[in-house]
């Protein structure tokens, strides 16, 4: 789950996770941050970023891990780590602050990580779905769903939408020579 501050990432991870609410921290030396980060200081200052995680046991053999990470640009090094081996991402959007999601969407597209966009319910939306797609510059094939991250069934439906999207992509790839 990625998105701006206060968009509901922690809430969503917690509402679907089977384990007690968990968060932890990743440390990175500044040297590991990479060339894109113009704010990076030379040397070895340690940066610590908190992120949420949750777990869902799917069957005897499969466990799904959920990670909630801040969506701001300065955290992208954390994403690269979280995204290694990830199935896909949920971009949470608060329609009052659509611009907070731009960077996340851009980065995911660039990275080739499949994702869905979930419009979190913070009261009556001020935009139609069409307007929201426009504002996010969302490609037509990317699903846009509504949710209330506080509700388990609603958060679960977002995960199902993501996996359905992945299934369609994977199926198409297998059947196209």
């Amino acid at each position, binding site marked *: 789950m990625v998105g701006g501050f206060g968009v509901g990432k922690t809430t969503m991870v917690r509402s679907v996770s089977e384990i007690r609410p*968990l968060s*932890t*921290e990743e440390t990175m030396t500044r040297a*590991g941050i990479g060339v894109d980060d113009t704010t990076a200081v030379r040397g*070895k200052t340690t940066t*610590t970023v908190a992120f949420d995680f949750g*777990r869902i046991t799917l069957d005897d053999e*499969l466990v799904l891990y959920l990670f909630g990470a801040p969506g701001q640009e300065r955290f992208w090094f954390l994403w690269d780590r979280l995204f290694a081996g990830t199935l896909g991402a949920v971009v949470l959007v608060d329609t009052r602050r659509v611009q907070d999601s731009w960077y996340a969407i851009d980065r995911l597209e660039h990275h080739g990580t499949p994702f869905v966009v979930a419009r979190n319910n913070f009261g009556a939306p001020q935009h139609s779905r069409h307007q929201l797609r426009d504002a996010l510059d969302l490609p037509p094939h990317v699903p846009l769903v509504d949710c209330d991250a506080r509700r388990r069934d609603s958060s679960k439906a977002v995960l*199902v939408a993501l996996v*359905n999207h992945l299934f369609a992509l994977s199926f198409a790839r297998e059947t196209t020579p």
Partner: protein
Amino acid sequence: MSPRLHDENPDRLYTITGGRSRVVDDGSIDLVTLIVSESEPSAGMQSEHARILRICRRPTAVVELSADLELPVGVVRILLCDLLDAGVVTARHPRTSHSPDALPSPELLKRVLLGLQKL
């Protein structure tokens, strides 16, 4: 967020890692790598090492260890390297797609869907 993590005394982290700040970043231990104990804690072992051995009697993901121990993932990685070097734990790596545009198979995704729908 756990306030304890944020208020962490840097001295404590320094002591735990023996002052090493090296981030084990070769990709060999990722957040969902499962760690399994291969022996029991021994007398005189550093307490964090002993705790890891006890927790990992059941295979435990690195990220869960980090939360249980209330230590940042980077510190846990350093501790795990010690234990791996000593041969008292083993690491089981998740099946991951290393190419960014590699998708899981439709069969695997079906199983994920079935599992989610049962929630």
